[in-house]
């Protein structure tokens, strides 16, 4: 008699535990995927911040650097291209070009000691170099999150649940331009 009851309880309990287990893994997969998406949007936030800072930078530096029109034009052009980019590949190319233009500009600044002593310029420069860092760290963090997510998707037993609910692998962020590989140095 009591054997029957135990058997019934077991039959009911096993699927229940299994369902709990699946729910747990599913939730952790969703959490990881959201973290990947969030990390990706962080990169966008920081890129946009860089766009916003550039007019400020140009405005502060213009008075001191009268003979560097080409440098300024290169920056503003790269900026408008980056802001107008539609696809991801287009945008990453344009952002790369912008980064390059900025690092060139910062090399030119070396020739203007007055500008380098200007408090406003120093403040903009700190903001800009920090934004460059933030872009780099956001990309780094995105790759960290993608690694964790892909690991989870490929490892047993979460790979079964990932397959059931069609969680796809994510791609790592890789810098296409060789020049972008080196984070532009905005430091003195």
């Amino acid at each position: 008699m009591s054997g029957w009851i135990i058997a019934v309880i077991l039959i009911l309990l096993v699927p229940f535990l299994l369902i709990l287990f699946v729910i747990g893994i599913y939730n952790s997969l969703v959490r990881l995927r959201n973290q990947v998406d969030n990390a990706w949007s962080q990169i966008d936030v920081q890129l946009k911040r860089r766009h916003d800072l550039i007019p400020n930078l140009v405005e502060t530096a213009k008075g001191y650097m009268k003979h560097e029109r080409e440098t300024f034009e290169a920056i503003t052009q790269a900026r408008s291209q980056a802001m107008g980019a539609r696809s991801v590949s287009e945008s990453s190319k344009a952002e790369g070009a912008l980064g390059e233009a900025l690092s060139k500009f910062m090399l030119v600044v070396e020739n203007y000691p007055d500008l380098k002593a200007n408090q406003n310029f120093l403040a903009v420069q700190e903001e800009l170099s920090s934004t460059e860092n933030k872009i780099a760290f956001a990309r780094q963090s995105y790759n960290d999150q993608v690694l964790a997510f892909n690991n989870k998707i490929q490892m047993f037993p979460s790979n079964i649940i990932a397959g059931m609910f069609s969680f796809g692998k994510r791609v790592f962020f890789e810098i296409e331009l060789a020049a972008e590989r080196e984070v532009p140095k905005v430091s003195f």
Partner: protein
Amino acid sequence: MWELIRANKRNSIFLMVIMAVVLLLLGFVIGRAFFGPKGGFFGLMIATVIWIVLTLISFSSGDQILLSASRAKPVTHDVHPQLFNIVEEMKIAAALPAMPKIYIINDPAPNAFATGRNPESASVAVTAGLLGRLNRDELQGVIAHEISHILHRDILFVTLAGIMLGSIVLLSQVFLRGMFYSSLGGSRRRYSGGGKGGGQAQMIMLIVAIIAAILAPIMAYLLYYALSRQREYLADADAARLTRYPEGLASALEKISGDPSPQLASVNKVTAPMYIVNPFKKKGQMKLSDLTSTHPPISKRVRILRNMTHGASFKDYSRAFVAVTNTKSIIPPSAITKEEIELRQAQAGAEKQQRLQTQMRQVGDIMRKVNQFIFLTCACGLKLKIPPNFKGDQVQCPRCHRTHNIAEKQSKTKS
């Protein structure tokens, strides 16, 4: 990363359980010794109540208590933009859910700590001395170390374990003092009054209680310190991973340890493990120091970080750790992943040697900004620093006697 956090949580729970057992046992033994066989339960109750009350307080406002006890002042972006930017950079790198609140402590001794309940509501505090001494890369290393403490949930551990430790110390102190005074005031009467057999059992119980009251805090301290030492290494490892630049933290640690300024003013034995380096300046080393120190020796930490020549992953730190200390790795094997992490170049560039005097002046300016001083730059080049309690609208430059309108400047900075 998650493996590390999980291992850390396990350790925390383990420590908390042991400390809770020690605390309850201590309560039981003391209760028995004081109030006879039935008093054990009573002592247990008192120990539990002390623990629960203190835990509730520390959970609801532990970070605020710690911050105000160390006289930390909250600051805004304008006071020190670089510090804010660095914290935000590390917040992004560590993918923290929220930006930690930032505090500055008005103290020339360079040090820093993090506190809070969880990563959503954490705080980072640095001393003004730290801001004055370190360059950008070094400051980044220190902040990365603190952010790692937040990421690893060390901040909650330190708060809860600190409170538990506090309760144990409190209980045994109260007991030992009580013993001392009652033995002065004719304890004979109390203990010789009972039956013969009962009196003897009571005496034994009393001795057990005294030994327990002496040993329990020491044990708890050693355990607490052992785990906090391990956490320092782990936070160093993660700081290297987050910044990809172990040299930044290494040279920051070196600068902090070589600093001549006097020790941090507001610090005690329980809050000491929070800081990035031990805030107590040593006076005469003992051999026991390895067991009783809250932090690993700085020279060792620096050597490990400098040994990371191949990459910035946990694996690289683990390898450097083994090479330097000749012991087994401190990082849980499950946390070591195969990923390769490249190191990066220094960002701060060639460092200009600043004179100590000018650096200390900068530190002073930071603190004046924190305390809402108004800054005026006179046309003759003199910088006027006006305290917030200054009465009157105008001030005269002491060098060239131009008058400046303070109210005007004030409204300008506010808008």
